[in-house]
């Protein structure tokens, strides 16, 4: 029983990890809490549905195309909205991101309607291993997210782009004085944020369904994960996401399923009271 809950919680946490990473990257580099992540998830889910069921792409190809679509939209949103508000402070950017999230969500509702839709994914019997029931969707989610995490880690740690992103997050003025064009790095960051949320949108659609509120249902757990991990810390966002996923699942041991979110957030609240900067927040503190 506990083993199954740990497995389910880990996979749920991994699903939260990609958008939580997107929130963490936005906060670290662009210095504002990006609420557009909810709308971007919804857009990713619908883009995946269009490529998969309407244009006939297999789910892997549809996922990649959906991620690319959200990346492109994110860059365009930076050009049209966020870039123009860059010097107006984090509150203006945060409010703008809330507006963007609602616009994206309602655009999807306007174009595709309120009906719940499903992706065309082969139904497979769950695997049974060591008393655990492992669904095909859980394997796909875990593999896709872990692959993304490794890739993102390599980009951030070993490539000039990753170093430049960390440099801009650390000290944008000095980065400019080292020949790094902040605007270029910011646009590429938006593209990465779009890729992460777009792919997460498709995974959310596989896990649940394609409907206008799919992104909103992840919004609060995603922010909880990013804050719990320590805003601005990519590794912290992943650990925070796992903590949220596991606490939501393990809460069902003590309360009915419908209360699990309240219990898990109570646990997170207690954790934050003990460690207010989040799990790995210390390194995100400006020196």
């Amino acid at each position, binding site marked *: 029983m506990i083993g199954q809950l740990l497995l389910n919680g880990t996979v749920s946490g991994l699903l939260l990890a990609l958008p939580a990473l997107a929130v963490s990257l936005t906060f670290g580099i662009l210095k504002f809490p990006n609420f557009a992540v909810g709308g971007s998830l919804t857009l990713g889910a619908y883009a995946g549905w269009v490529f998969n069921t309407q244009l006939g792409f297999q789910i892997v190809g549809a996922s990649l195309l959906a991620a690319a679509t959200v990346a492109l939209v994110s860059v365009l949103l930076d050009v049209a909205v966020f870039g123009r508000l860059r010097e107006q402070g984090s509150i203006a950017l945060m409010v703008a991101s809330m507006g963007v999230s609602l616009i994206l969500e309602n655009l999807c509702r306007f174009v595709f309607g309120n009906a719940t839709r499903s992706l065309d994914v082969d139904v497979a019997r769950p695997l049974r291993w060591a008393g655990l029931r492992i669904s095909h969707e859980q394997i796909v989610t875990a593999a896709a997210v872990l692959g993304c995490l490794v890739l993102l880690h390599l980009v951030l740690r070993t490539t*000039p782009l990753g*170093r*430049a992103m*960390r*440099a801009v*997050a*650390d*000290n944008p*003025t*000095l*980065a*400019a*004085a*080292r*020949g*790094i*064009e*902040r605007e270029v790095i910011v646009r590429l960051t938006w593209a990465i944020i779009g890729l992460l949320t777009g792919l997460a949108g498709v995974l959310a659609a596989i896990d649940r369904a394609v409907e206008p509120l799919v992104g909103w249902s992840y919004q609060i757990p995603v922010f909880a994960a990013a804050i719990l991990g320590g805003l601005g810390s990519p590794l912290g966002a992943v650990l925070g996401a796992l903590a949220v996923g596991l606490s939501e699942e393990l809460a069902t041991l003590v309360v009915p399923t419908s209360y699990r979110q309240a219990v898990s957030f109570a646990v997170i609240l207690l954790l934050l009271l003990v460690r207010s900067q989040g799990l790995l927040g210390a*390194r995100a503190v400006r*020196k």
Partner: protein
Amino acid sequence: MSGAPAIPALAVRGLRAGYGRGGDIVRGIDLDQLPETILAVIGPNGSGKSTFVKALAGLLRPREGSISITGRDVTGLSAARRVVAGVAYVPQEKNVFATLTVRENMQLATEFLRRRAGTGREQEERVLTLFPELADRGRTLAGNLSGGQRQMVAFACALLANPEVLLLDEPSAGLSPRFVSETMEAIVRVRSAGTTIVLVEQNVQAALCIADAVMVLVAGRKSLEAPAGQIRQADLADLFFARAA
């Protein structure tokens, strides 16, 4: 003297700069600095020294005037493009990426300067000859270094870009006397290696010891420009205190 006069490494004409919607902090500065010299920019607090050097680095857009590096007008270039054009800047504070290692700081110093000549392996070896203590500190997080060591990393990173003009904003600030002396020696070594240096300093005595020329700023204007050897402390006191208002 024979032959054509040398092109100034740094030429500034009628430079005016300030922050936001506030008034001008730098109020019309003209300057010609010869190559491979150290110009000490001194003046009382609030005289516009740091603002002047930020405007040279491109971190503050000039409101009027022009800036040329070895004859090329760089006034309209962003800070990042000015580095490619040959300007390097070491700020007074937060002069290294504290959350990156020393090695990563040094990698970043040239990674985005592909179009600039002389930023390759040879330059790195030259810089490590100037600052040999950095060679075995590559994996240290820059934020864990002492103030003096950070200053050295910041110098090294600026020099890796093989600049024509190096802008230093109060490099001795917050350093112990021993490190001030080491820092000034390092600046002389950099000048000897062929770089032109603009040195903004509050520590007037230390700056005068190594400078070739001195420019005194008072209330955003140039009060005096002269060879360092001709400057007397009494003149400076008069300039600093009598005309600061």
